């Protein structure tokens, strides 16, 4: 079993489909539970869409690299890109925690709620964002 898998995608929101397919393969390989898979699939979608939407000037073509790494106790997903300095946990549209859920910020709440740890670093001209979820031995392994 490989404990680290990587995919590189162009910064188009539509590529979240390829990313989802990539993670489904990782989930099978890593034998993670369906619950953790569902959580991380959603986190990955929200994070990638946020990066593709806000880390680059429009029309610019860039690459976002996503690494899924499994260790005995956790799974970490790292997003790396060469866009402008952008932390996916900041909402450029301005988060308003009101009854009007159309105001944005929902993706960030999803990311932070469904993962145990999030870390953003600007390293040189690169954004590096990692989310981590602790692994438990599955009762209902993804088939």
């Amino acid at each position, binding site marked *: 079993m490989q404990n680290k898998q990587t995919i590189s995608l162009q910064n188009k929101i539509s590529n979240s489909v390829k990313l989802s397919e990539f993670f489904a393969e990782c989930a099978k390989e890593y034998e993670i539970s369906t619950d953790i898979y569902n959580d991380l699939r*959603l986190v990955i979608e929200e994070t990638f869409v946020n990066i593709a939407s806000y880390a680059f000037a429009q029309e610019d073509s860039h690459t976002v690299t996503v690494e899924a790494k499994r260790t005995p106790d956790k799974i970490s997903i790292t997003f790396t890109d060469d866009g402008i300095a952008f932390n996916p946990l900041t909402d450029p549209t301005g988060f308003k925690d009101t009854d009007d859920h159309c105001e944005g910020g929902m*993706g960030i709440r999803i990311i932070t709620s469904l993962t145990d740890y999030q870390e953003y670093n600007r390293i040189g001209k690169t954004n590096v964002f990692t989310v981590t979820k602790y692994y438990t031995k599955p009762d209902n392994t993804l088939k």
Partner: protein
Amino acid sequence: MSLEIVITPEANNGKRILIEGSLDSNTSSNLQQSIDANINNSVKTTILDFEKLEFLSSAGLRVIFKVKKRMENNGGKFLMVNLQPQIIKVFEIIKAIDSMSIFKDQAELDAYLKVIQDKVIDGE
């Protein structure tokens, strides 16, 4: 994963929207277009049926809240039924459960609709 949308008429100027698959950043615009084409001001009740929905992201949530607001602004009702556990979890995370009319299954929804219909018949 794609999104299948089936819209059918319901009693008393209602519409049911059955969504199947994934409601996400790539498919939410399809749902928005279907709603814009089918849910006009004459529709008094919109039922969003989640029975076959496997995945919901914030992009899909935005479309759902938009149609909810549209229905309420027109004096109509927006009801949701048959939500799977992973979908309910998303609504819980964004703390929207209390503000939505959610029915666990068709029987619960039917009971609610019957009460509404009886009130109309009684002229309340």
